[in-house]
């Protein structure tokens, strides 16, 4: 098998992946012995893989771990409540007082319709799949989803202007009791933003 340089360049990455059949691999190696340019491509790519794959290449910033743990601790330990002792009791009491005040305050004011209807239309906190370049979001694995996708929360998908897939997502939301008759209306009709 005689290869041209272009063939070698096309396969050079697979060569390093070990993803070539033996005959093609041998043909590449024969080509390298006679072609300084392709040797230089091979050595350069080898160098790139070696350098960027080195653990020393991208170290974590100093203190990263401690800062991450501090932020996680707020969420993890903050929800245990009793571990905070008296401080926790005081904070809980203060929160309760604040909530009572807020609800009393709320009752004294007329509420806009949208705000009153919000609890029934609030989306569930779940991750959904958004197809790149598409306009809908899906339950991951939906058979009507094609192409590249990324995961976002349902809230983010709606906020970014994506509409729920009329098959998988509508069904999932309805069976979970989240869908009210106007679900497909205004909430999904918001303008499509920088989502492509």
């Amino acid at each position, binding site marked *: 098998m005689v290869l041209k340089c272009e063939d070698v*360049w096309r396969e050079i990455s697979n060569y390093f992946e070990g993803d070539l059949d033996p005959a093609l691999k041998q043909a590449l190696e024969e080509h390298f012995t006679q072609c300084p340019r392709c040797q230089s491509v091979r050595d350069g790519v080898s160098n790139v893989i070696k350098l960027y794959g080195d653990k020393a*290449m*991208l170290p974590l910033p100093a203190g990263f771990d401690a800062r991450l743990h501090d*932020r*996680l601790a707020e969420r993890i330990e903050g929800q245990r409540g009793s571990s905070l002792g008296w401080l926790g009791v005081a904070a809980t009491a203060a929160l309760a007082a604040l909530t009572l005040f807020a609800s009393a305050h709320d009752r004294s004011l007329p509420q806009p319709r949208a705000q009153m209807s919000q609890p029934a239309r609030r989306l569930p906190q779940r*991750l959904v799949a958004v197809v790149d370049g598409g306009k809908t979001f899906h339950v991951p694995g939906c058979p009507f989803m094609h192409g590249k996708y990324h995961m976002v929360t349902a809230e983010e998908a709606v906020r970014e202007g994506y509409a729920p897939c009329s098959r998988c997502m509508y069904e999932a939301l309805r069976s979970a009791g989240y869908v009210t008759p106007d679900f497909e209306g205004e909430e999904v009709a918001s303008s499509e933003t920088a989502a492509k």
Partner: protein
Amino acid sequence: MRVSRSDPGQEHEATLIGRVNRGERELFYELIRPYEKRVFVIAFMILRNEADAEDAAQDAFLKALKYLAQFRAESRFSTWLIQVAINEARLRQRKSHFEIMRPIEDQENEDGTYTPRDIADWREIPSEALERKEIREKLIAALGSLAQKYREVFVLRDVEHMSIGDTAEALGISAGAVKTRLLRARLMLRDLLAPGLDGAWAGHSQIPKGTKPWS
């Protein structure tokens, strides 16, 4: 997708996930510890800014904790976590830059053939050169100059050593697309790192013939 029940690492992870979900939330630290760097690195290579990447990584871990109950064992936990991190970084990127800031190279056709530069005197950059901060910075700048679709694939496969399949799953693209982008990224970086050439690696400084800028 490829969960092998005979893999003790993944079995341990599945046990940890179950215990976190049942209320032993402090075990979440143990669950994520092996992936802290990976999450930071992918966020860093998307956002190209250390402070933003750290914020995005923290948010990604918080989100993973919040939604852990929804994680399904059809995919690896690490792949799911990376998906969450990629998404967090992309969201942050969209909020701060919008579409006009996206590099023009993103529009180029990745199926087109790429012709590597003809460099007569290729020299190897030894790994020891990575001890020098300015060398690492130049390598990071070279990678940062690639279009995002190449950076994402390259960082998962070649920096973080994820498999082609896991890289494809994390990015929601086909294995074929991973291979095509990986090839292009490796060739472009090879050209950028070639001594004596203009570009992110060599900058505009003249390198005297016969000397190595990294030695």
